[in-house]
């Protein structure tokens, strides 16, 4: 306690510690916060001691997890204090309390810079540490050269230089351009000669980042790195204080090897040889010792060496040495080493042809799958997944399935998905695959996404000899009590299609199958009910000659759902009911599903897309996304149309959008697949109702497309003799929805076929968004079915900061993102780079800084492109960097206004124009418009009530110019007005006048640019005004 040296702080900490419970603590903390707040507010002359004490208390409270939303200014202000004790507190607490995006940090850039370039070494250290820990992009731009100078300086002490190296690393991470200077790689080579190992460690960290980004530029560092590594491993010339448990700086060894891993290959034979010698020594001479820390440090070096050996793709002998080592590690008891053994074995699979030797350890790896530690279980699962191939798939997948029953929740999802992928990828025969997936659904139905069972349907449909087997299996599962709903779906589908193949087996007569299915109706959700209805109709159809009793029972089911509130279920029930009356004619319509065209598994495709991290597309996440997507685009229900319930349409809003989108942009393509005439679309719909309707309930279009989509094209046209469209047109009961009402559903399936349309259209007129943003500071800038760009802006005088929120609305990643901003000559703009890829449903923020130099109505243009699938999309939109953003309402008194008005005599500083074609609006509305344009209206200044007088200040660079505006309106003709604008700057006067004109005139926005008057129009102002006077 004595050490703390601040009694008030110690007392406060003890008080907090003595609190019995969270409430008491909260009360004590609130009291202290109130105290600090009043002290900061009321007492100007706080002593140094008090300031420090309060700031430390704030940090303590903050650390406890309470919000500290004041006092930041006081904290930051301490940085500027002259004395070390205050400065230190200021720097440390600032870097803990504020993050790099905090505005206050910008305020101290100058002070920090002065400390960095100043002579006081202790101040330099404080400043470098703070910038290294929380410096953002602005720091990077203003401080990088100074920090570089310190790093390469001969006169600075090592203490300062190592801090400078890491500080530069931070600045480099924020803005890679800071070291894009000629000869910097030479500098790095020189720095690698550093004698002080502290500095060398920091420099090596910097080098890791530099090489990772741009290995070509730093080739010349390779020899020095290898030499450093040699020196370290031999322990030559290493000061005692830089050894750690007898090992020469293990951290520096690890970092050096890390640098070498970022070079694509090391070709120079002599360098390669000496490097391999060093690595060989590490591999052979790392022993297990008793001391934990020594053991950890030496193994840290060993694992890094293993990684480097793998990277270098060394000789086979050395590689097999590595496998032997790893094999040893995965069987030790020490959990850390076992974890790392498994992890590195997985990495090894990716780079080297060692699969056979790793397979020898399979049983050991399976033991780790049951380890009590989830970290180890994860590694083991990953490794099993990676090493699986045709030869061991059966064994591994069965092991995974067995483990699934006992696995804890945290890992089940990943486990189920991996098992499904492996089963599909390496199935020795398809019946085994069907077995595995059905088991999977039984054991972990919640984690089996629809894609997985769609895939089962795909295989079964395409393989005739699998159908009876699958149907029998499905029947077996449905018999069990408490069946998962996904099982009901897949079994219902399979039994509907193929149960007739079993008809002769005991317990599999159509009647019995129907009873099983009928028994499942009460406990399932509507999408499943729809599938079951289709199964019923198929069973009935296959029962030839018709069994009267069965037909009655099935018809009873249809009747039950004829009035279902769910449109899909209702529609099926009604249609099937109508079809069931057709007797034999139904056989053709209800024929078996045709074979699917061969296609890549959606599961595998996604697994590849998500960078190998298969868990990303896990079922629950998928479900979440679906929920999000409906939440995102819920729109007004479409008016009730025929028998359709409005709810059903709005539910499928997301798909609805796709459909709308497609309908707008590419009707020809949709019609290429199926002629768009209503009857044909509908006939198609009937043939494929089994599947796509079921799918169309899922808002996520992709799933639907993948499995069910092709049917729209492939389904053979139904027998001409009994076209179902005729059938329905003639005989549909009155409650049946008219064909037109169903068409959207089918269109949907067609539209979705083309997942990435060749031309992506914005959802609304881009100009409208722009117009809204011209008056507001946040809103949508652009939106199409895949991407949404929102904008939020803050404007202060001549500066502004906009943040673009680029959101991926799609269920797949957006790739090849590029964005560039073309600023007009009067603006300086700087924007951060966009990442190359946005993962599904993710959003990135792109800050853009704007500074205005002079008045102009031109706006910046955002050129943005991305690819969805393989389709590139290019967007060009204007950014609302309008003149009015740099205006601020200026309060002026009557006298002042009149004086100024007089002083600004006539053209070009004062311009007058009669504006015609004004959008008629009451005066109050016009005043409101002015205010939204940041032009402040001064009511009562003009005696004439039909006039508006307003003033505003325009900021550019460092200048602020007052602008005066007068509008005279004619109450008898609201479509014209006389507008007078005055300011000291002719250019500004003109631009402001045009800006106001643009906003009051009734011009369609898109064509607005052509309406912009050319400078010659200025000359017309006078005569036009004169003319107006005459009238």
């Amino acid at each position, binding site marked *: 306690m004595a*050490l703390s040296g601040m009694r008030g702080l110690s007392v406060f900490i003890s008080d907090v*510690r003595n609190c019995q419970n969270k409430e008491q603590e909260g009360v004590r903390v609130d009291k202290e916060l109130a105290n600090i707040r009043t002290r900061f507010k009321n007492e100007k002359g706080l002593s140094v001691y008090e300031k420090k004490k309060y700031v430390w208390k704030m940090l303590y409270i903050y*650390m406890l997890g309470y919000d500290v939303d004041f006092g930041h200014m006081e904290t930051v202000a301490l940085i500027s204090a002259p004395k070390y004790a205050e400065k230190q507190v200021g720097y440390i607490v600032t870097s803990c309390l504020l*993050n790099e995006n905090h505005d206050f940090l910008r305020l101290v850039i100058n002070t920090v810079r002065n400390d960095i370039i100043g002579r006081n070494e202790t101040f330099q250290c404080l400043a470098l540490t703070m910038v290294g820990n929380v410096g953002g992009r602005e720091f990077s731009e203003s401080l990088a050269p100074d920090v570089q100078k310190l790093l390469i300086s001969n006169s600075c002490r090592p203490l300062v230089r190592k801090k400078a190296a890491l500080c530069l*690393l*931070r600045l480099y991470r924020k803005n890679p351009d800071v070291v894009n200077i000629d000869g910097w790689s030479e500098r790095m080579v020189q720095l690698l000669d550093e004698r002080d190992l502290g500095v060398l460690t920091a420099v090596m960290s910097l080098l890791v980042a530099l090489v990772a980004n741009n290995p070509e530029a730093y080739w010349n560092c390779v020899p020095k790195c290898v030499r450093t590594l040699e020196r370290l491993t031999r322990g030559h010339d290493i000061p005692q204080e830089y050894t*750690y448990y007898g090992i020469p700086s*293990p951290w520096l060894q690890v970092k050096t090897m890390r640098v070498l891993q970022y070079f694509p290959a090391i070709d120079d034979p002599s360098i390669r040889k000496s490097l391999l010698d060093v690595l060989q020594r590490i591999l052979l001479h790392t022993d297990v010792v008793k001391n934990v820390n020594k053991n950890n440090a030496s193994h*840290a070096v060993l694992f890094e060496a293993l990684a480097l050996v793998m990277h270098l793709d060394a000789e086979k002998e050395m590689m097999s040495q590595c496998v032997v080592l790893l094999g040893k590690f995965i069987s030790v008891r020490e959990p850390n080493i076992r974890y790392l053994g498994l992890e590195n074995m997985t990495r090894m699979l990716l780079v080297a042809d060692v699969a056979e030797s790793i397979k020898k350890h399979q049983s050991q790896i399976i033991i780790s799958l049951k380890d*009590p530690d989830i970290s180890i279980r994860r590694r083991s699962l990953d490794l099993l997944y990676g090493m699986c191939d045709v030869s061991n798939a059966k064994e591994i997948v069965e092991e995974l399935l067995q483990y699934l029953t006992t696995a804890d929740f945290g890992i089940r999802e990943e486990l189920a998905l991996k098992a499904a992928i492996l089963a599909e990828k390496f199935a020795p025969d398809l019946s085994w695959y069907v077995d595995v997936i059905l088991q999977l659904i039984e054991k972990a139905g919640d984690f089996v996404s629809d894609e997985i069972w769609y895939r089962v349907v795909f295989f079964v449909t395409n393989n005739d000899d699998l159908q009876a087997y699958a149907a029998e299996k499905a029947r077996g599962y449905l018999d069990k009590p408490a069946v998962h709903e996904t099982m009901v779906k897949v079994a219902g589908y399979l039994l509907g299609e193929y149960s007739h193949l079993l008809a002769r087996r005991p317990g599999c007569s159509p009647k019995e199958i129907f009873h099983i299915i009928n028994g499942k109706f009460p406990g399932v959700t509507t999408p499943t009910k729809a599938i079951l209805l289709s199964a019923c109709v198929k069973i009935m159809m296959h029962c030839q000659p018709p069994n009267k009793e069965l037909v009655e029972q099935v018809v009873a089911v249809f009747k039950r759902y004829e009035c279902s509130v769910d449109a899909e279920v209702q529609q099926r029930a009604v249609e099937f009911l109508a079809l069931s009356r057709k007797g034999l004619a139904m056989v053709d319509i209800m024929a078996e599903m045709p074979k699917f065209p061969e296609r890549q598994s959606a599961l595998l495709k996604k697994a590849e897309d998500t960078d190998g991290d298969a868990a990303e597309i896990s079922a629950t996440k998928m479900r979440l996304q679906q929920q999000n997507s409906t939440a995102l685009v819920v729109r007004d229900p479409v008016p009730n149309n025929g028998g359709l319930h409005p709810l059903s349409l709005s539910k499928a809003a997301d798909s609805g959008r796709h459909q709308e989108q497609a309908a707008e942009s590419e009707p020809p393509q949709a019609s290429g697949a199926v002629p768009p005439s209503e009857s044909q679309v509908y006939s198609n719909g009937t043939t494929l109702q089994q599947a796509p309707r079921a799918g169309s309930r899922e808002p996520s279009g992709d799933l639907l497309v993948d499995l069910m989509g092709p049917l729209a094209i492939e389904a053979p046209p139904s027998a001409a003799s009994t076209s179902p469209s005729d059938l329905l047109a003639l005989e549909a009961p009155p409650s049946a929805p008219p064909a037109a009402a169903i068409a959207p559903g089918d269109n949907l399936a067609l539209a979705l076929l083309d997942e990435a349309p060749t031309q992506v259209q914005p959802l609304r007129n881009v100009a409208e968004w722009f117009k809204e943003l011209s008056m507001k500071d946040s809103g949508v800038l652009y939106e199409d079915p895949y991407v949404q760009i929102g904008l939020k802006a803050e404007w202060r005088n001549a500066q502004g900061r906009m943040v673009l929120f680029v959101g991926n609305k799609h269920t797949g990643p957006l790739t090849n993102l590029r964005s560039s901003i073309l600023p007009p000559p009067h603006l300086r703009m700087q924007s951060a780079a966009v990442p190359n890829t946005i993962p599904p449903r993710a959003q990135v923020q792109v800050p853009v800084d704007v500074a205005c130099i002079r008045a102009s109505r031109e706006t910046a243009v955002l050129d943005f492109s991305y690819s969805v699938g393989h389709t590139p999309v290019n967007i060009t939109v204007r950014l609302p960097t309008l003149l009015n953003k740099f205006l601020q309402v200026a309060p002026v008194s009557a006298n002042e206004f009149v004086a100024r008005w007089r002083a600004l005599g006539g053209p070009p500083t004062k311009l007058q124009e009669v504006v015609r074609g004004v959008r008629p609006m009451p005066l109050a509305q016009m005043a409101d418009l002015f205010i939204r344009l940041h032009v402040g209206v001064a009511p009562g200044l003009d005696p004439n009530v039909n006039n508006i007088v307003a003033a505003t200040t325009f900021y550019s660079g460092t200048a602020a110019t007052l602008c005066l505006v007068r509008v005279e309106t004619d109450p008898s003709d609201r479509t014209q007005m006389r507008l007078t604008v005055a300011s000291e700057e002719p250019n500004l006067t003109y631009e402001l006048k045009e800006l106001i004109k643009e906003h009051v005139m009734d011009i369609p926005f898109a064509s607005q640019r052509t309406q912009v008057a050319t400078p010659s129009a200025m000359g017309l102002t006078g005569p036009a005004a004169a003319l107006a006077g005459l009238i």
Partner: protein
Amino acid sequence: MIHFVLLISRQGKVRLTKWYSPHTQKERTKVIRELSGMILSRGPKLCNFLEWRGLKVVYKRYASLYFCMCVDADDNELETLEIIHHFVEILDRYFGNVCELDLIFNFHKAYYILDEVLIAGELQETSKKSVARVIAAQDTLIEHAKEQSSSLSNIIAQATK
């Protein structure tokens, strides 16, 4: 790189936090809550690594305190584990057999010391001696300042306020 450093007591109280990648206050609170739940519930004989949100948390328990560092998934875990130990040894040397109470009442010292060990989420100094020298020099500077502030003029300024 190290994204953040956390010291949590066995009761889940935070004793030190340091963030090297930007997190808002809200995120910080959330991360701490999530991680302390995960780490405190782990048994004693498990490994010192925890996979979390695509990153890795390397942690070690010393008496009643958990020292946690969050690193990138491909960083060297054992290296990080020994950075923790290195930091603990430095604290131990400074406080002389460091215990949780030392870090509670002198949390500000722990921050000074951490700043000499890590910058920008990277190890700054691997020599304990060198760190000890720098910290001692800082302490002298502050002592010096304290003497000045307790000088007569300051006492008068306080009294007449």
